[in-house]
């Protein structure tokens, strides 16, 4: 292994100029991560808020007004009033509302006291997830209102069993609090594996590698020239993601930022190693990018525990996830962001990431040669 500072600096400078001028690398390195973060932060929230619900009151009275007011106060629902059930059903068919609350004509205090308050809730079941959430939210609103109603009117009513629940680690139960840090995994996989897989393969494809190899550069210099700039790019993207996750989406960063930084650096190195390995073996950009997507990007999405819980995966697939660097990084991110510095979780995961980084970089170094064969 030979190193010449002048050559390495020249290669780094070249790489930076190329990153700056190549719309694709800016796109993958900066625009795509920001976009993903926004999509996951705002778009694919797994919670449902302000769900449009149609309300049909057959015979308005103070009691119905009080319940509808209760519904309006809830942040889960956005009620719209309709004159008749026919009109409301039509609105649901056109998906203007996701559910219909129908308060029958004998929705009165007396009916309530006797335990058979006549109301129906019709939920659009097309989106099963939202439907189930809505059902749950409605139960909550309903029981709260009943309790409040009993208190204010001073009359005991037959309330359903009260459920008391408490949620740990994500007290607000907001999915974006764990999705936003999770996106960091995706972003770093993009920069680390996909972008680097493209850059070496591109040098082979455009014939620049042959010209490069005919100068006195060493293999180590070429590899480092790829690792350096993309490491900086990836860490930059990570910092932006963390700032967005905390600042924009209010994700709590309970643990130490320094541990987070270390974990990210190790994960990025393993991704870079993977990317370099892929593009050294497959010397075409098309093949390299396909392999990178299948081998790193998709697993980071599906098998890392970012969206789907690893514990609920079938046994063989669960075993397979141990081979993925993303798995360890997701565990670290969720722990550091939501639980704090839990060393019994952090240390083994950091160790696993170090091993992965050393392994992939080592193999990439082994398979790169100063020759065209």
């Amino acid at each position: 292994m030979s190193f010449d500072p002048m050559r390495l600096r020249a290669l780094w400078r070249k790489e930076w100029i190329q990153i700056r001028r190549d719309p694709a690398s800016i796109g993958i390195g900066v625009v795509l991560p920001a976009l993903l973060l926004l999509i996951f932060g705002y778009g694919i929230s797994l919670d449902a808020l302000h769900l449009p619900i149609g309300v049909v009151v057959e015979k308005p009275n103070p009691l119905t007004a009080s319940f509808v007011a209760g519904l309006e106060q809830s942040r889960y629902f956005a009620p719209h009033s309709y004159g008749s059930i026919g009109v409301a059903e039509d609105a649901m068919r056109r998906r203007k509302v996701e559910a219909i609350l129908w308060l029958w004509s004998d929705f009165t205090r007396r009916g309530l006291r006797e335990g058979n308050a006549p109301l129906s809730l019709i939920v659009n079941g097309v989106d099963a997830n939202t439907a189930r959430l809505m059902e749950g939210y409605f139960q909550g609103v309903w029981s709260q209102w009943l309790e409040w109603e009993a208190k204010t009117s001073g009359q005991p009513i037959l309330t359903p069993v009260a459920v008391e629940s408490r949620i740990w680690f994500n007290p607000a139960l907001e999915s974006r609090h764990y999705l936003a840090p999770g996106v960091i995994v995706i972003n770093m996989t993009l920069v680390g594996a996909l972008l680097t897989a493209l850059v070496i393969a591109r040098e082979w494809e455009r014939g620049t590698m042959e010209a490069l190899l005919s100068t006195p550069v060493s293999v180590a210099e070429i590899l480092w020239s790829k690792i350096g700039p993309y490491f900086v790019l990836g860490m930059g993207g990570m910092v932006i993601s963390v700032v967005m996750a905390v600042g924009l989406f209010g994700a709590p960063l309970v643990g130490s930022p320094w541990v987070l930084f270390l974990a990210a650096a190790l994960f990025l190195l393993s991704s870079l190693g993977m990317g370099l390995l892929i593009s050294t073996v497959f010397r075409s950009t098309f093949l390299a990018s396909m392999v990178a997507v299948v081998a790193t990007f998709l697993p980071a999405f599906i098998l890392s525990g970012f969206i789907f819980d690893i514990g609920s995966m079938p046994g063989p697939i669960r075993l397979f996830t141990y081979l993925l660097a993303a798995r360890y990084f997701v565990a670290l991110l969720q722990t550091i962001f939501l639980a704090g510095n839990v060393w019994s979780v952090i240390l083994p995961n950091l160790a696993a990431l170090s091993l992965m980084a050393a392994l992939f970089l080592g193999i990439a170094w082994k398979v790169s040669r100063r020759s065209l064969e």
Partner: protein
Amino acid sequence: MSSAPCISLDGISKRFGRGEKEVVALDGVSVEIASGRITGLVGPDGAGKTTLLRIITGLLRPDQGRVTVLGLDAARQQQELAASLGYMPQRFGLYEDLAVGENLDLYADLQGTPKSERAARFSELLHMAGLASFRDRLAGNLSGGMKQKLGLVCTLVGSPRLLLLDEPTVGVDPLSRRDLWSILFRLRDEKGLAIFVSTSYLEEAESCQQVVLLCRGKLLSVGDPREIAARAAGRTFRVGSNELGPRALHSRLARIPGILSSSIEGEGVRVLVAGGSLAGQLEEGGLGGCRTEPVAPRFSDAFLATLGEKGEGQGKARTPGPPSAEHHRRSGEDVIVVRDLSRFFGRFEAVKKISFHVRAGEVFGLLGPNGAGKSTTFRMLCGLLPPSAGLARVAGVDLRTGAASARARIGYVAQKFSLYASLTVRQNMEFFARAYGLSFRLRGERIRWAEEEFGLAHYRDADAEALPLGFKQRLALACALLHEPDVLFLDEPTSGMDPFAREELWLRIGEMAQQGVTILVTTHHLEEAEFCDRLIIIAEGRILAEGSPGEIKAPFRTAETPEPSMEEAFVGLIERSRGEG
């Protein structure tokens, strides 16, 4: 000192692939290349030229044999060797998204050029290459010829002692080629550089001091090109006929077994004979009444003769069968009419109000330097690019209104290989036949015709990408002819082809023209312009000259050059137009 060898190859062999797919790229090559000289490396496609150069750089290791370059073992001391070597691969690795100056800086850093020497050397090199005013331009925005010159400059920043160039002039216009070669001569004379350059232009090899002739991985011959040329002495003639036109004469002559090579020159045909008496052979071929006169041999004659003696290239130029069923077309009618045709790209006017017309059965050439607007004109005439203004009519169809119906009557062979590489020869033809909407019966008939006409039957089930270059070109041509087009467009069909393949292609073009097909062709090989009935020379979107090859050359006839070459006329025209602009 200049006689000491700087490259010494001893019994070099190299194979690629394994088992049935094994290809012998080099087979026991031993040769010494002297320092302080320009040595040319020539050979037909697939001769092993690129492999040989890569072995000399150490980027490939030979299976057998020793490579000593500048006193170093290339296979083991590659990195040390790289410091004193300048190597320019076939597609030189310029970083297209880096500016000219940034590319230079990069290679200077990589070669370890001292900072103090850079300013002077950069300006000297850029000046020499005529790139001084383009320092801040991105390499990707340079013309093809400028890119090659920049590539050469980049290999020179480290002041190498030996320069290895792999076909540096492929796809480069004649003017830039001249520039490139004058740079090489200066480097040899002023710096005493040893240069080893591979080329498919034989006239370039002729100007080298030493030539290495390679064929199918074997060394055929080494020596002074003039000495090699002398081997063809007494075997080259010009044949003329009172009854037959040059094109008909050419296709008759090409079918005589004893004639190794033939090409149209003015009103006659220049031939190279394998040996024996020409008159006897003409008599046998039914051409007894022809006039013959001996002409001076060229290096290319010796090249073809040497290959012919070794049994290489035999039967190649002879494969085309006799002209098949005549196309029923009236000749003399204008098939292509272009009037005041313009094309803008943004504010840039690539083609400026050009007008010309091509008659049925004519071979019409489009010549010009890189970036002259040839390809743009071509694409407009093929209906691939809408014109900005003016009239373009092909086979009676106005391209502005009926581009699609015009396309059914034309065949197009693109500059780059544009067939499906992973389909077999047969599958490619099937596909194109269907794409042109040929009926089942006609499809079978035309494919059988193409296989026979182009000698493709043997390769029927081979993948298109595995074909030798010459056969790829044949296949591309076959696919473009399946629907019996009236007009055939050929965009630089001979770029990078070896002389045998080129000669064969031109013979075929001539025969198609005789059958009434109208052919529009672009080329960088100016001697090929002789095959055209008429041609135009364009530069910067304007027509500089129009006429038959003789008419184009006539204004450049002087006392010193009573018979100016097409290249001299071309260079003269371009320089004159640049002087005016």
